């Protein structure tokens, strides 16, 4: 974990991200809001530009050259995504706008036709709203019941609690792979095996894992897995659903329209084969192609390399944050090599509200997120109204962590001098740094 080694990856890639090379309020930008969305490398921007400058045409609809080029690139990107997550077949990858749409697709298509009153769905308290609201809506439609796995002492997925909740009434388990707030990495393989023993289907929300580590859908053996392109160096407006072939085949269409049909009559239609059955209307062609470019880019670096480098950053981030007085860090502590959690840290400090912190850090060029990060129930569970969150990607550096932590300390000084006597001791989310 030497400085020289660390410089290697970030130094190699930073030139690929033009957006990182700018000043904010006269300070170099330190972008630490990657869990919200990642930045895009030039190859991805070029893919968008090239598509519109050279190949733009509708897909699957024309015999002319441009249409065939567009179709090849669009479908070629699907092959890349399939290989990236090790799907058994390209037909198992359905393009969606984002992870949220992918989850809604499963909830409407599979959920509505398979769930009945009294059936149970197991989620966890750490789910992003995207992996909660669609199931709430499904429960309202069908009378299914939602159950929630709670957290261990170390603020991780409580596998024992999960085992106590699951039964033959459980029809679905939908769990986040890596929490966007706690940073814990959930044992999805084990969860899936247990769920399958009870005949339940499993959906994995891989939004925060796919951009940062190798994810293998066959090894996990999940029934569905969802992710958003924009968090993995691709543009917004594109994401994907992985689903096991037979299962996707058995599911009725979600949205109707062009593209998803085989034969159309006035009173009924037959549907296209997978994956197009679930891709109604003209898709986000350029974005899908750019997603393919992002996957190529990440694969060229290597997900193992990215993961190892991010683990080094995690160890350093944690070590530095722990030195900030009266900080409360959420989620599990990394081990000495930075393993055991994702390269992000949600925290609160005794002196400064996350919102104020984010404004003050912005003046120092440092972009972090403040709020509930779309995990409001988790925040309620933790007794925190909101948290601040710094989330890293492979283009971040140790120096940026230094800048962030120095600015954090300054911010605490800036507001803290006025606020030192404020009664935060009663704040329920502020036990004495249990992660230390």
């Amino acid at each position, binding site marked *: 974990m030497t400085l020289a080694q660390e410089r290697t990856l970030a130094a190699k890639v930073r030139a690929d991200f033009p957006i990182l090379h700018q000043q904010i309020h*006269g300070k170099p930008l330190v972008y630490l809001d990657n869990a919200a969305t990642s930045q895009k490398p030039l190859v991805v921007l070029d893919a968008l530009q090239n598509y519109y400058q050279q190949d733009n045409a509708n897909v699957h609809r024309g015999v002319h050259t441009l249409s065939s080029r567009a179709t090849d690139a669009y479908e070629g990107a699907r092959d890349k995504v399939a290989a990236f997550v090790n799907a058994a077949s390209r037909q198992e990858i359905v393009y969606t706008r984002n992870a949220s749409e992918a989850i809604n697709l499963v909830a409407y298509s599979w959920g509505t036709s398979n769930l009945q009153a009294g059936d149970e769905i197991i989620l966890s308290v750490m789910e992003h709203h995207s992996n909660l609201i669609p199931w709430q809506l499904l429960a309202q439609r069908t009378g299914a019941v939602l159950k929630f796995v709670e957290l261990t002492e170390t603020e991780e997925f409580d596998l024992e609690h999960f085992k106590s909740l699951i039964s033959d009434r459980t029809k679905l388990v939908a769990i986040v792979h890596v929490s966007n707030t706690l940073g814990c990495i959930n044992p999805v393989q084990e969860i899936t095996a247990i769920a399958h023993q009870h005949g339940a289907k499993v959906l994995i929300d891989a939004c925060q894992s796919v951009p940062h580590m190798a994810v293998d859908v066959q090894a996990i053996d999940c029934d569905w897995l969802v992710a958003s392109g924009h968090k993995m160096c691709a543009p917004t407006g594109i994401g994907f659903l992985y689903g096991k072939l037979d299962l996707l085949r058995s599911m009725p269409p979600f949205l109707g329209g062009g593209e998803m049909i085989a034969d159309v009559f006035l009173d009924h239609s037959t549907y296209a084969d997978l994956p197009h059955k679930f891709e109604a209307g003209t898709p986000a062609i350029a974005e899908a192609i750019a997603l393919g470019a992002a996957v190529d880019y990440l694969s060229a670096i290597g997900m193992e390399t990215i993961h190892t480098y991010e683990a080094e950053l995690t160890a350093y981030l944690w070590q530095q944050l722990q030195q900030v007085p009266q900080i409360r860090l959420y989620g599990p502590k990394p081990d000495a090599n930075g393993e055991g959690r994702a390269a992000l840290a949600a925290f609160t400090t005794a002196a400064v509200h996350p919102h104020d912190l984010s404004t003050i850090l912005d003046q120092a060029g440092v972009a972090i997120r403040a*709020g509930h990060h779309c995990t409001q129930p988790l925040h309620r569970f933790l007794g925190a*109204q909101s948290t601040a969150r710094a989330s890293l990607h492979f283009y971040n550096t140790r120096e940026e962590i230094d800048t962030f932590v120095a600015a954090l300390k300054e911010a605490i000084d800036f507001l803290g001098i006025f606020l030192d006597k404020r009664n935060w001791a009663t704040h329920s989310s502020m036990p004495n740094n249990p992660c230390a």
Partner: protein
Amino acid sequence: MSLDNLRNLYQQVILERYKSPRHRGKTDPVDRYQKGHNPSCGDTIELTLHLDEAAERIQDVKFDGEGCAISLASADLMAEALRGRTVAEALEMVQRFQSMMRGEAEFPQEFRKLNVMQGVAQFPVRIKCANLSWHTLKAALEAQEAQLAAFVSNE
């Protein structure tokens, strides 16, 4: 760090009010109750009002809740400024405050303390924080009586 920008936002008065608010709590009696919520950050405020018999004049205002320095200081300063005002005057002040957040107005001498919030107009993403209590006040005043479950969202 651009401390000048920050000092303009976090004026001394704002920080003092954040640290030691003067109008936290609940009025006695509670003639109006309104909960306000800023869904984007999770901040909440509970506003209580004590009105005169005719429900025309504000006798007392108190707030409770959790939030950032901007939202809590704004609530505290608002509570102070409202004492003794008529409902109509208070509604006019809501409008003026919201205009001030757009950089289009300020308060006259009598209410000059409220002008310390002017710096927020330079931080567009924080305007919601400053507006939360005023937004909640408007809902409280427009309600006909104490609504114990009332909840407004600042979106």
